């Protein structure tokens, strides 16, 4: 009996040094950052177009940004739909899914401090919404 007690005392909780969850979280953060970079490159095209049309508005009197955008749309229908509607919607969905994934893998924290790791994704969502708003004006 004493021998058994000694054995029982020696038994400790198993030490888990490697957590698969940590691996999943690190992987999700890397993927989210990669996707935000892709978003940045693709969203830079409509942002550049908006900047160019804004310059045109400034230098050409009696024109507005929405007028120039509609003029561009009438000339380049497919490109404008692709750059001003399709791409922003796709990247809103992709970045939102990435943030959601990180949020759940972080254990659904109450504070928004977890967004520090995914701030670039949030920025891409803001840019996408901005493009959609400017296009719909």
């Amino acid at each position, binding site marked *: 009996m004493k021998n058994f007690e000694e054995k029982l005392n020696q038994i400790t909780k198993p030490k888990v040094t490697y957590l698969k969850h940590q691996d999943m979280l690190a992987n999700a953060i890397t993927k989210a*950052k*990669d*996707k935000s*970079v*892709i978003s*940045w*490159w*693709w969203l*830079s*095209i409509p942002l*550049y*177009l908006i900047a*160019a049309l804004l310059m045109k508005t400034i230098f050409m009197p009696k024109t507005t940004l929405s007028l120039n955008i509609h003029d561009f749309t009438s000339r380049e229908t497919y490109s404008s739909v692709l750059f001003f509607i399709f791409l922003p919607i796709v990247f809103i969905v992709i970045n939102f899914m990435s943030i959601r994934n990180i949020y759940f893998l972080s254990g659904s924290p109450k504070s928004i401090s977890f967004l520090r790791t995914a701030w670039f994704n949030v920025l891409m969502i803001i840019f996408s919404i901005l493009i959609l708003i400017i296009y719909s004006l």
Partner: protein
Amino acid sequence: MNLPWFKRIGIFFIPTAIIGWLILIGGLAYGVYIFIDIDSRSHSISDTLINFVFNLLIIGAVYSLIAFLTSRAVKK
């Protein structure tokens, strides 16, 4: 296929394999060709730059998409 061909540093994808370097060199060569082509048809420096930057962004976007798709190690 031996992946990954690229690794991400900041907002850029850097080649890590010969195929990656070939894609990068191809993209740069195409960029130079586009610049010469636009420059031969444009009437001013700003005309050249405005059209060239747009094309450069498209090349960068396509390059980054290829790099993103080929920067993942194949799961065994």
